[in-house]
C-alpha cells in the first residue's frame, strides 16, 4: 500500500489535545475510496471511540467527554464531507456522546435528586471496556493454532469392504403402511369429492371471501385441517396470483415468524 502524500497546506482535522476542529478544507487530499477503506477498518462507533481514546491517551475511567466528542465528531465530519454512507450506529453514537456531555453540564443538585445518580459516562465506559475486552479475546483466540489453518488432521483411508446394506422390510411394515394409507384416505374423503373442482381461480375467490371484514388472516389459516397436497399447491398458487394482481399483501415481521395475508381493499378502506 503506497504512502499518501502529506499535503502541506492541509489543515489539521483529527485534532490533538484540545485544539478545536478547524473548518474542513475544501480540497481535502483524501481519495474517497482510501478514506472508505480506512473507515471500514473500524468495526463500529465503539471501535472508533476506543481508537481515539488509545491514540490520544485519554483516561478511559474518567473520559474527558468534550474532548472525546470533538475527536469523534471530527471523524464523522470527514465521513460526511466525503459523502460516505454512514452506518446509523455512528450517528446514534454522536447523539449519545452529546447527551452525556450535556448531562455532565447539569448542576449537581439536579443530579442528586435522583438519589445517588451515577456518572452519566458509566454506561458508555462499561460498554467500551466490555468491547475492548472482547476485542482482545478475539485476538488471543485467533492466535490459538486452528485445525486446517495451522495444522492438518490425520486421515488414513479405511476401504469400504463392507457391502452396502439394503433396507429390511417385514410384513408388519407393509401392513402398517397400508393401514396408514387407509386412514389417510378416510380422513381426506370429504375433500376427495371436491377434487375435480380444484381451481386456482376458485381458491382466489375463497381467499378473498375469507379476508372480507378482516384486517388480515394468518397464512396458516388458509390451509384447513387434513388438507391434501394438491390442494395446498392450488391454494398457494391462488395466493401468489392474488399478490400478482395486487389484491392482497403478504407480510412477515421476522423470519420464521407468522406470515400475514392482508386484503388491499381493507388497507385502502382504513
Amino acid at each position, binding site marked *: 500500500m503506497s504512502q499518501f502524500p502529506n499535503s502541506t497546506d492541509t489543515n489539521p482535522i483529527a485534532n490533538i489535545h484540545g485544539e478545536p476542529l478547524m473548518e474542513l478544507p475544501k480540497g481535502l487530499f483524501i481519495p474517497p475510496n482510501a478514506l472508505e477503506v480506512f473507515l471500514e477498518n473500524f468495526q463500529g462507533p465503539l471501535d472508533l471511540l476506543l481508537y481515539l481514546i488509545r491514540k490520544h491517551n485519554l483516561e478511559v475511567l474518567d473520559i474527558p467527554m468534550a474532548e472525546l466528542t470533538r475527536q469523534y465528531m471530527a471523524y464523522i465530519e470527514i465521513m460526511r464531507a466525503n459523502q460516505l454512507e454512514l452506518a446509523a450506529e455512528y450517528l446514534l453514537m454522536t447523539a449519545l456522546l452529546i447527551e452525556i456531555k450535556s448531562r455532565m453540564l447539569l448542576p449537581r443538585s439536579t443530579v442528586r435528586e435522583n438519589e445517588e445518580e451515577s456518572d452519566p459516562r458509566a454506561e458508555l465506559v462499561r460498554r467500551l471496556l466490555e468491547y475492548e475486552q472482547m476485542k482482545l479475546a478475539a485476538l488471543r483466540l485467533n492466535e490459538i493454532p486452528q485445525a486446517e489453518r495451522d495444522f492438518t488432521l490425520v*486421515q488414513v483411508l479405511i476401504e469400504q469392504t463392507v457391502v452396502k446394506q439394503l433396507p429390511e422390510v417385514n410384513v408388519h411394515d*407393509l401392513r402398517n403402511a397400508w*393401514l396408514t394409507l387407509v386412514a389417510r384416505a378416510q380422513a381426506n374423503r370429504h375433500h376427495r369429492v371436491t377434487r375435480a373442482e380444484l381451481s386456482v381461480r376458485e381458491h382466489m375467490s375463497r381467499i378473498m371471501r375469507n379476508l372480507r371484514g378482516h384486517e388480515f388472516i*394468518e397464512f396458516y389459516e388458509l390451509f384447513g385441517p387434513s388438507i391434501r397436497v394438491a390442494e395446498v399447491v392450488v391454494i398457494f398458487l391462488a395466493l401468489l396470483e392474488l399478490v400478482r394482481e395486487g389484491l392482497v399483501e403478504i407480510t412477515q415481521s421476522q423470519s420464521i415468524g407468522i406470515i400475514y395475508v392482508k386484503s388491499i381493499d381493507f388497507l385502502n378502506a382504513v
Partner: protein
Amino acid sequence: MLSKSSEPIDPDQVKRVLEAALLTSQDPLPLSELKRLFDDELSTDILRKFLEELREKWTKGGIELVCVASGWRFHAKLEIQEFLNKLNPQKPPRYSRAVLETLAIISYRQPVTRGDIEEIRGVSVSSPVLKVLEARGWIEAIGHRDTPGRPILYATTKSFLNDLNLRSLDELPPLEDPGLLFEQGKNMELLPITEQVSVSGISETLHPLQGLKEETS
C-alpha cells in the same frame, strides 16, 4: 533446516515428514508431490528408498503403506478392519414412507399402475420410488392396462416373497376393516393426520406441509 541444500539431509527428518504427509493426505501422493515436500532436492531413488523403509516399518502396524496407481498412501489393514467396524456398526437403512406405502399398495392391490398408486396415496409417485423397488427385484412390470396411455402394470416378484419369508401372497397379514380404524381409538398411532380432526389451529394445519416434505425425499 532440511530445505537448505548446504546442510546434510537428516534421514529421520525426511521419514518423519514423508510419514506425516502420507498420514494426513486425503489422496494418494505421487512421487512428484512427495518431492515437493523437500523443494525437489531429493532424487526419486532416494525418496523411493525412504518410502520402502517406511513401508517396512509399518508392516507390523494396523495400517500399511501401499503404492497404488496414483501414488503412495496408507490404509487400514484388512485384519484390523473387523475391530474398526465395531466403531461404526452400520445400522440397516430404512425405506422412506413413500417406498413402503408404494410397496404396500402393490402387494395388496396388484397388479396396479402408477396412476392407481397415486390415486390411493393422494400424491404423485416419483420414479426413484419405483426404481428402488425394481432394482431390489421386489416389483416388476407385468404388462400394460388397456386404457388410454397403456400404463404399465406392476406386481410383486417371487424374490419379494422369498425375502419376506412368505410362501405366497395369501400369507400377507390380513387387513382390518377400515371402518374399524376410527373407533375405539384403535391403531391411533398410525394416524398422524386424523388424530386432531376436530381441533383447529396452526399445529394441525401444518400437517399437510410436513407430509409434503416426507413425500419428496
